[in-house]
């Protein structure tokens, strides 16, 4: 049994012995991406379970141990982890928890601290919490993000974005239900196997894989009916996580819409870009800026590969980060970086420009950055793009699905009316 060790500030560490004995629980945000992340961690020798639970008990645990006015994602993630320790059939003395730590000016940077507070309250203070961050914030002897692991994770993210993008464009139209998901699963395993063999992790190999993936997805038989494309943007957790957004994508599918969900890569680039911007605005080390520029440049190049691959097919391709950054000028400054910052508005703009003016903007109830970058920008978007059709949906433990769905239905009804209005206007030559 691994001994509990603490650092000088009294923080419980995740030790090398724990790596052997403990199961690490991780929350799920994007099902495909995080699934691949998990497998990569397993290959590194960690025992990792990804939590896919989705029931009311999670919210109840969260309400018990987290301040109820804290953002909903914190409540869910912490509730889910505690629910799993208590009821997931684990030995509480043999589990550790993964949680990401960002370190921006919004409340989300506090998740790890809130999680520790909650564990203490629940009498589980002996459960180590492992911070996953790229800023060198908290270190643990039993866990390290090695350069090779980071590289694999980044490639997994890029593949994840491409897979999800393709799948989203096929799933609403597939003739045999389940085809798309089968294809998704197959490719995830193939990619991971490749990583294990050291394959797929150069731009050249990635480009080849991209083509192969897309070619495969193109073989899935689909119908050619016309469906409303609906963009999904928002606070990162509720935007992506089915637990957070009450299975929003499933609902949109059931309403006969095609969900368009901008990927994770832009967010990643955005976070690196912020460090560069900080130096521009407030001053700081030239070297830091240069490093960020190089790192960002590399991921942007990978993103361009993805776009190029998509453009060769019948699938719609997203725009580049640079393009989005251009679109958002006149809306928000580069310095707007807390939470999703200007990226959220940028994603809405990109969606509108790529023929997806119908958008669900998701946020946890009372989300601070989204007052500004989400709800705060809808008026201006509507003024500048009269045919944009954006509905802001709040998520919290008390919000009911029926209320949310009714508002989304209104947005969908609007979408039809607006399309008709636009057509009529175009027809009359106004």
């Amino acid at each position, binding site marked *: 049994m691994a001994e509990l060790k603490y650092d000088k500030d009294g923080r419980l560490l995740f030790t090398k012995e724990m790596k052997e004995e403990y199961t690490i629980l991780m929350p799920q945000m994007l099902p495909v991406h995080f699934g691949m992340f998990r497998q990569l961690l397993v290959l590194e020798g960690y025992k990792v379970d990804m939590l896919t639970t989705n029931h009311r008990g999670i919210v109840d645990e969260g309400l018990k141990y987290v301040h109820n006015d804290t953002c909903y994602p914190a409540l869910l993630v912490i509730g889910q982890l505690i629910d799993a320790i208590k009821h997931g059939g684990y030995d509480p003395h043999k589990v550790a928890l993964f949680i990401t730590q960002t370190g921006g*000016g919004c409340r989300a940077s506090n998740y790890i601290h809130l999680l520790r*507070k909650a564990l203490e309250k629940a009498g589980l203070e002996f459960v180590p919490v492992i911070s996953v961050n790229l800023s060198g914030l908290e270190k643990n002897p039993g866990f390290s993000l090695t350069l090779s692991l980071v590289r694999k994770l980044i490639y997994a993210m890029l593949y994840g974005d491409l897979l999800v993008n393709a799948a989203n464009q096929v799933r609403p139209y597939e003739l045999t239900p389940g085809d798309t998901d089968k294809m998704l699963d197959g490719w995830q395993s193939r990619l991971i196997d490749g990583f294990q063999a050291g394959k797929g992790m150069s731009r050249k190999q990635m480009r080849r894989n991209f083509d192969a993936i897309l070619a495969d997805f193109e073989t899935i038989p689909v119908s050619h009916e016309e469906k409303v494309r609906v963009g999904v943007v928002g606070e990162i957790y509720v935007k992506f996580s089915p637990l957070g957004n009450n299975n929003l994508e499933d609902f949109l599918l059931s309403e006969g819409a095609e969900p368009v969900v901008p990927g994770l890569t832009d967010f990643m680039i955005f976070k690196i870009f912020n460090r560069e911007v900080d130096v521009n*605005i407030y001053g700081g080390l030239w070297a830091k800026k240069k490093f960020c520029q190089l790192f960002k440049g590399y991921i942007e190049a990978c993103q361009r590969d993805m776009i190029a691959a998509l453009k060769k097919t019948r699938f719609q391709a997203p725009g580049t980060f640079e393009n989005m950054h251009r679109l958002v000028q006149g809306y928000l400054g*580069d310095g*707007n970086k807390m939470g999703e910052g200007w990226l959220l508005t940028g994603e809405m703009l990109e969606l509108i420009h790529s023929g997806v003016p119908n958008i669900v903007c998701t946020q946890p109830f009372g989300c601070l950055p989204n*007052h500004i970058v989400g709800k705060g920008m809808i008026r201006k978007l509507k003024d500048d793009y009269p045919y944009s059709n954006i509905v802001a949906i709040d998520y919290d433990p*008390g919000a009911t699905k029926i209320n949310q769905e*009714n508002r989304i239905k209104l947005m969908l009804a609007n979408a039809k009316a607006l399309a008709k209005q636009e057509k009529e206007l175009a027809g009359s030559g106004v």
Partner: protein
Amino acid sequence: MILRVGIDIGSTTVKVVVLDEDNKLLFRSYERHYSKARERACETLRSIEDMLKGRDVRLVVTGSAGLGVAKTAGLDFVQEVYATAAAVNTYIPDTDAVIELGGEDAKIIFFGGALEERMNGSCAGGTGAFIDQMATLMNVTVNELDELSLKHEKIYPIASRCGVFAKSDIQPILNQGGRKEDVAASIFQAVVDQTVAGLTQGRELKGKLVFLGGPLHFLMGLRERFVDTLQLDEDHAVFPEDGDCFAAMGAALCASDYEARPFDDLLRLLEESRAATSVVDTMPPLFENQADYDAFTARHNASTPPQLDIHTYEGDAYLGIDAGSTTTKIVLIAPDGGLLYDYYHSNLGNPVAIVLEQLKEIYKLCGNRIHIKGSAVTGYGEDLIKNAFSCDLGLVETVAHYRAAAHFNPDVDFIIDIGGQDMKCFKIRNGAVDSIMLNEACSSGCGSFIETFAKALGYDIADFAKLGLFTRKPVNLGSRCTVFMNSSVKQAQKDGASVEDISAGLSISIVKNAIYKVIRAASADDLGQHIVVQGGTFHNDAVLRAFEQELGREVTRPTIAGIMGAFGAALAARDLKLEQSSLLGETALQSFTHTAKPVTCNLCTNHCSLTVNSFDGGRRFISGNRCSRPLGKEKAELPNLMRYKYHSLRTTYSGKGQGDGSRGRIGIPFGLNMYENLPFWFGFFTALNFEVVLSPESSRKLYIKGQRTIPSDTVCYPAKLLHGHVEALVEMGVDAIWYPCMSYNNDEGIGDNHYNCPVVAYYPELLAANVPSLKTTRFLNPYVGLWRRKDFTKRIVKMMEQEFSIPWKETRAAVDNAYDEYHSYIWDVHTMGQQYIDHAREHGLPIVVVCGRPYHIDPEINHGIDELLTSFGFVVLTEDALSYREGYAPRKVLNQWTFQSRMYNAARYVCTQPDMQVVQLVSFGCGTDAITTDEMRSILEQGGKLYTQLKIDDISNLGAVKIRIRSLMAAMEERKRREH
């Protein structure tokens, strides 16, 4: 001819219409469904079978509750706002905008330009349900409320964001004698404000407006408020004859796009879908069987005071009155606590009349046998009743409740009281009240919520509560703010839960709310070993049982749970040991008169809404005041750093300063972080020869001015005020407005980082995107950071050169001046803080350190809490006057916001000072305070201090604040007594 049928199933009503081919209305009905929506729709359809039987019809369902019905029955559905738009397009084609209020929804549709349709978010404020709730609160029917409102003389500001909020605004007005007519009109005004603010979101309401939906159809007073507020004439305010059925008519119109089906098939589908119920999230039953329940009631009934007969008793007696928010409780006890008389009744909005009538009754029963030797009053209406009837003692509720609880269980270590409107809980340590927790404004109203719900479902409250006792599967309704439960209940109904399941579910939810939201306990041990529960709500056995189940432990509920406050007051009156009570005697009551008149105090800029209560014999009682000036006394002038800072900022830092103002007038909005940075920018711009123009002082009027451009109604009030500030600056004709974005605050070395919160950091960008008038001026909102002086200088030099062609040398000098001004302001705050501490210690006065953000010193934001504190004899300091006295220390949370770090440090310093206490101000909607409040509490409690939190919003409810402050004072006294 194929007839079209539209069915609109809303949250409270069902509307059915039939249209012919020319869109003419052949049939219409509008009925309440009492949550049996589908059955009601079937009945209505059957009643018009003659018209439709055997024919093919096109039938479409719409409405918020219609979605579920349509889905299970396999009928066609259109979204209700869409349907309404279709109806308006057809019947009133030149409409510019539609406002529709429904049971729980509010909707707005803009025509002209691109169609824009919007409905309220997850909050039910400002809708029919809200009006129903308010009518219940005032104990009138909705129609009576309407009639009352037409006779109003003045309007009080009332929050309609959430029914619970409004309740806390209305109750004090009613309790303090405000006119019902005025309150009724104020309720409608609140609905109008909510609709305009919440839904227009920056788009102007103009041209021809059509008003739809049940409430606007039936309530003339509500119509009047809309017409007045939007300044509409008859041609531009249209209230169509069938305005209550428009959504249903729209659905019928939309039906043209759907297939015709035989009416009999459709009716059958609707009727048969009854059996289909989906899975509901349920919980274990409250009681397994009758025996269980009997044992439970027997156990609780053991805690009871001796019952004495008032008709035969001879001797002394003591009177206790609890003038609660919704109910008035009165007891008369013998010296041993034996109960002679008790009374518990809704105060019907007029507690004075109730007490008068009861006192007469009591005197009659007493005859010459019983002598009332002491009287005490507690509760919301304490001041009013005490003055009206000359009671001997007024005491704060918490203390009254503790006295009563200790009477039944001397070992009591935790008391929870859930009343009609509020929840109070506190721990008892070493025989003294400790750790008082009152519910925050957003979850209050628990008891009356069940009542409103019972009524909405057509039940009496007592019957409704009993329904849930034996259900096998109580529905899980969650534990957020009670108002959100409206939609949870709607969902449960849709999923097929029965009224019994819902009743039990509501009881359990309220308990969870109390335990996890107010008390924030993780386990029963967090509370205590000997728990006494009281308050009218615990008379509800379902609630009591749920409470015990949730805690996993048995508690004490005295049989007089509902009148414990009054009982405690009577005990306190007894302990006064008076020879003679000053209570008005039997003869004096005969000539008792009471009139209440609303007036606005004009003695200062607060413009408090006062109520002047006049009694016979010239006795007067004024309520609603924040200071003693309207009472004819001079304002108490105890040192008050909040007022000092505010005054200093307003008077010192505007104008031309040392410059000549030749470069023009630069406007600075006086809000948010400008309360910290104003001296800096003043020093900067005046050195550059700009004249600095401040926006006017915040006020409700200024808020209303900018209200329509607020895009997010859940953002904090301090941020919302900025809309009015910048609009005012534009009107003042300044040459430019300076309001920079600042992700980072100053680095004072006391935190892990030094951010601003996202709202403070980026609000300038939100204003630029949402306030149209800013396009007519130069709005400068660049990103700056002040903590790296050299980098800042470089950047601002460039900026000033680009914007105003100012030579770099001048800007550099101005930067120096800016830092100097800022530092001398900070130095001044520190020095004054020390002076005030010295003053307090010289005079032996207690000190309260008000911990908040710099902008909390704005009187419109804090609603005069500082003056309330000084009127109670405290010297008031602020967090920034003390935070520098402590250095950095690691915290259990990420300590990354400068303003918030100051609070932690101030709290740590207070822990080292025996004569200081902390009061934390929290703005509703402040996300960062969800983090800070727990941390502040733990710092203070570890340091042996009391924790008091005051939650503030756009509306002032000083009544609740007073309870907290007085509870704090009582606890402080108790501690002092214990130490000696």
